[in-house]
């Protein structure tokens, strides 16, 4: 009995850890998209965040410094994107793809000498008494702090978007940049901030992977999570609360795959590795098929450049 329970607790812990990078990256992208900017380069930003975070943690010996560096690196990557699409009015889809390709190459170059290195992982929370409670103790009070931070970020983001004035401005910019501009809001400035926030969150997601989830660095270690996070934003129909559901669903699928392998089912491991990608397609189809719902919730100016005016 207690054996099964212990296994269950372990499963919940790994699922939470696997879901956190998806949740973080998707939360950031949601804000970016709400402002009308479609940044497809999440994968590249996550990878650079992961490698910079890892390298910083290895050289400084402090994983928290690594997390900070990862956030900064992600923001820097998104700044390249922002300048190109906001200042140079470049095609957002193409620029996002360029960012993904560039980030993959850059992270591989920067990380070449860190492959196989060990790092001090983020410490887990240890609260007196609370963390030692049976079952719920480790789940609620004994994980790495970034998991709790990811919930806080999601809640804060949700509050910001739907309960604050600044969030209202951001959404207005995403719905109709011409109207927002006419009222006097600084469309480009708002989009810069929203894009940088998205980059910072992707960087954080990457740093989480290399400092808490894995914790190690290997080339292309995000394995498509940046793209899955993009799909999650559609899945959530641009509503933060539903991101939580999506991220944990995909985290569970990722972990389920490992468990099935452990149970010794005769299914080749490659087919299990396909699962999250196939699930992304299925989920995307289920949500998108309801055209009205997607059109109602998608920011109306998503992906459209705001003309050069002065």
């Amino acid at each position, binding site marked *: 009995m207690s054996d099964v329970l212990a296994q269950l607790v372990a499963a919940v812990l790994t699922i939470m850890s696997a879901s956190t990078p998806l949740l973080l990256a998707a939360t950031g992208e949601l804000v970016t998209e709400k402002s009308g900017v479609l940044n*497809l380069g999440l994968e*590249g930003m996550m990878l650079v965040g992961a490698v910079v975070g890892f390298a910083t943690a290895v050289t400084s010996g402090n994983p928290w410094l690594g997390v900070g560096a990862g956030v900064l690196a992600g923001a820097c990557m998104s700044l*390249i994107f922002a300048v*190109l699409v906001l200042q*140079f*009015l*470049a*095609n957002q*889809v*193409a*620029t996002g*793809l*360029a*960012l993904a*390709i*560039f*980030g*993959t*190459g*850059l992270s*591989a*170059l920067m990380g*070449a000498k860190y492959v196989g290195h060990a790092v001090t992982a983020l410490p887990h929370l240890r609260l007196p008494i609370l963390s030692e409670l049976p079952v719920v103790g480790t789940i609620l009070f004994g994980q790495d702090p970034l998991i709790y931070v990811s919930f806080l970020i999601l809640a804060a983001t949700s509050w910001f978007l739907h309960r604050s004035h600044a969030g209202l401005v951001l959404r207005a910019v995403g719905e109709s940049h011409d109207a927002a501009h006419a009222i006097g809001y600084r469309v480009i400035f708002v989009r810069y901030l929203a894009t940088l926030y998205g980059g910072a969150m992707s960087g954080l997601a990457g740093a989480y992977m290399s400092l808490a989830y894995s914790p190690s660095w290997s*080339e292309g270690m995000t*394995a*498509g999570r940046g*793209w*899955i996070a*993009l*799909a999650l934003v*559609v899945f959530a129909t641009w509503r933060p609360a539903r991101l939580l559901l999506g991220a944990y669903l995909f985290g569970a699928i990722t972990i389920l795959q490992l468990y099935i392998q452990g149970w010794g089912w005769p299914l*080749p491991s*490659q*087919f299990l*590795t*396909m699962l999250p*990608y*196939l699930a*992304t*397609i299925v989920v*995307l*189809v289920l949500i*998108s*098929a309801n*055209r009205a719902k*997607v059109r109602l919730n998608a920011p109306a100016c998503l992906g459209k450049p705001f003309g*050069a005016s*002065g």
Partner: protein
Amino acid sequence: MRIRLEPRGQQSALWAYGSPVLAVILTLIVAAVIFALLGKNPGHSLYTYFIAPLVNATARPELLVKATPLVLIGVGLSLGFRANVWNIGAEGQYTLGAIAGGGLALWLHDSESHLLLPAMVIAGVLGGMAWAAIPALLRTRFNANEILTSLMLTYVAQQLLIYLVVGPWKDPEGYGFPQSRLFQEAATLPILVPGTRIHLGVLFALLAVGLGWLVLSKSAIGFQLKVIGLAPRAARYAGFKEPRLIWLSLLLGGGLAGLAGLIEVASTVGQLTTQISPGYGFTAIIVAFLGRLNPVGVLFAGLILALSYLGGEVAQIELAMPSAVTGIFQGILLFFLLACDLLILYRVKIEWREAVGARP
């Protein structure tokens, strides 16, 4: 001083062609800086990376070999991108083409028939098309974004390939390496120029450029693709059927990517392994943009990006530089290209002092 963008009112023909050239020059400048940062002599590195492969007589034919898959895929993608159909899963369609065509060769591994190769080519094209048909169906029937579905299918295709070469298709005499048996001669593309690796596939690429150009500039379909990309509402008003054009774009792109995959495994690779592409399907996206989404431009762009792969290999050996540098250059090239494209639609005005009566 302030910098102002002034709409030209029409596209600048000069900058449509000048922008890629400027982007390449800027990329070379940044490349020199990156070399310096890596502690290498920039001049010597640039020479090794970008000039040496052109000067060396044995390396030059390799340029055509490397450009072949890039051009094939790039032509297909450029037609689709024109219609705003963002098929970014060409890498997966390439893989499926290799699996379908290569699988046929493995299945008939003791056939010496002259019909085997044509059958493999057809299988490769169909394999790529089938993989691209999935995002086409999901987009037209269920409104699912083809960017994400085609990309997800790339990961699926890679896993499928790994499964096949470590599982049922593994070479029984391969000492456990993840690879199939080598293709027999009848399943290998003939060499066109003796002493080089220039194979029949190079002709396929040239043919694709010619046909792509014909379709785009001379056919009604090409016209519809262009209109739907530039003015979707006008296209709908004119009665162009959007789903049909989406299907067409994806099937064309997928078929050519599948062909590229088959050609690659039936020539330079010579078997199915887990390493059949250094990311050709993704690089071809850059090729398509650098070539101005025009098949003839794609040919030149393919050669330039092929040089980046070749230079990367030389630099890896001679300068001990990681191969990842290639990806960085490719990304930077696309960044610069997208930025320079601003010049096609806008004039950049630098005003040294505030003009009288300037807008606030």
